């Protein structure tokens, strides 16, 4: 398990669509482990997609219990080739992204989504997500299609904000030094 450096926009890989994974090989396994380690290294980070660590494969990890808004019982989820096959409702939520570190934005997302994907062993699964998990999974699926939350804001002035709090690795927070 290695903590990998996180790619930051304007790194071009963040705007490319990812290739789907044919077989979960040992290389894919290592990627899943590295994504998990990298996500857990960043306080409050609840999800990470492969292009954020420089890999153009449709793989992401999700662990919403790492955030106060997430359900504490939800464990680590591995998304290989995830697709949103159904969606309904709409919610507005302030989102941040490790790859756009200085901004946060109000993004409108579906309130409920049905996701089809494969797990870390390559077995297909499908499930409905709602609440905070639904938002997180849509954010990660966007990454795998080369989309950032900035592609979804409606007003640069009223929906986008300078990040004020940066979480440190030790879990404390603070404003950036002026």
């Amino acid at each position: 398990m290695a903590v990998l450096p996180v790619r930051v926009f304007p790194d071009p890989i963040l705007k490319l669509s990812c290739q789907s994974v044919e077989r979960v090989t040992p290389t894919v396994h290592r990627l899943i482990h590295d994504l998990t380690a990298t996500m857990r290294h960043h306080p409050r980070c609840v999800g990470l997609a492969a292009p954020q660590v420089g890999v153009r494969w449709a793989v992401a990890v999700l662990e919403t219990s790492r955030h106060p808004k997430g359900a504490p019982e939800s464990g680590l989820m591995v998304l290989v080739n995830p697709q949103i096959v159904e969606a309904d409702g709409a919610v507005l939520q302030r989102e941040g992204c490790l790859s756009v570190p200085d901004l946060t934005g109000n993004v409108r997302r579906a309130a409920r989504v049905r996701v089809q994907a494969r797990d870390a062993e390559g077995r297909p699964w499908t499930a409905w997500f709602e609440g905070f998990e639904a938002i997180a999974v849509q954010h990660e699926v966007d990454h795998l299609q080369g989309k950032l939350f900035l592609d979804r804001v409606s007003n640069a002035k009223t929906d986008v904000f300078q990040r004020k709090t940066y979480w440190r690795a030790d879990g404390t927070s603070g404003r950036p030094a002026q």
Partner: protein
Amino acid sequence: MAGSRTGAAHRTWILTASGNDRPGMVAGVTEVLFRLGGNLEDSAMTRLAGEFTIMLALTAPAALSAVKLERAFAAVSRRFGLAVHLKAVTHRAAPSGPSHLISVYGADRPGIVYHVSHLLASHRVNIIDLSTHLAAPSKGRASRPPLYLLVLEVQLPSRLSVSRLEPRLRQLGKRLGVEIGCRAVDTAVL
């Protein structure tokens, strides 16, 4: 000339004002309007570069001429050091069709707004709303260029499809080194 939607007795004006920001400016401007028997129809107020700026669509009794209105705002303008400008609205824009959102973002550089709006103008695309955000990178990340974000709400002429406009926007994005995306404004039907 009377504004057609506001009845014969009223006339519509656009007022713009800006000045060094301090408390009381909105109250000062709207008090004048209130005392004149006018009405505020729509407004946009914000701070630009720390300067208070306000744009108001207002209706005022038709008996008030431009000179009289300007005189009415003279005191508040002096008190707050406000530059005030008034313009009569002579006709209302025709009702318009569905709109699209164009987002543009990338490392800040001169000419982004110009080049994007020029391309849109050459296709007779009408910009109805424009907002920008310039992100200052946090300290310690100073090597990163500031990120510039521009979101435009636009209306396409009926003969222009999004699928025809999009590749041109993408092409321009490549040339400018910024990301450009276009999508329909999706209004939630509840």
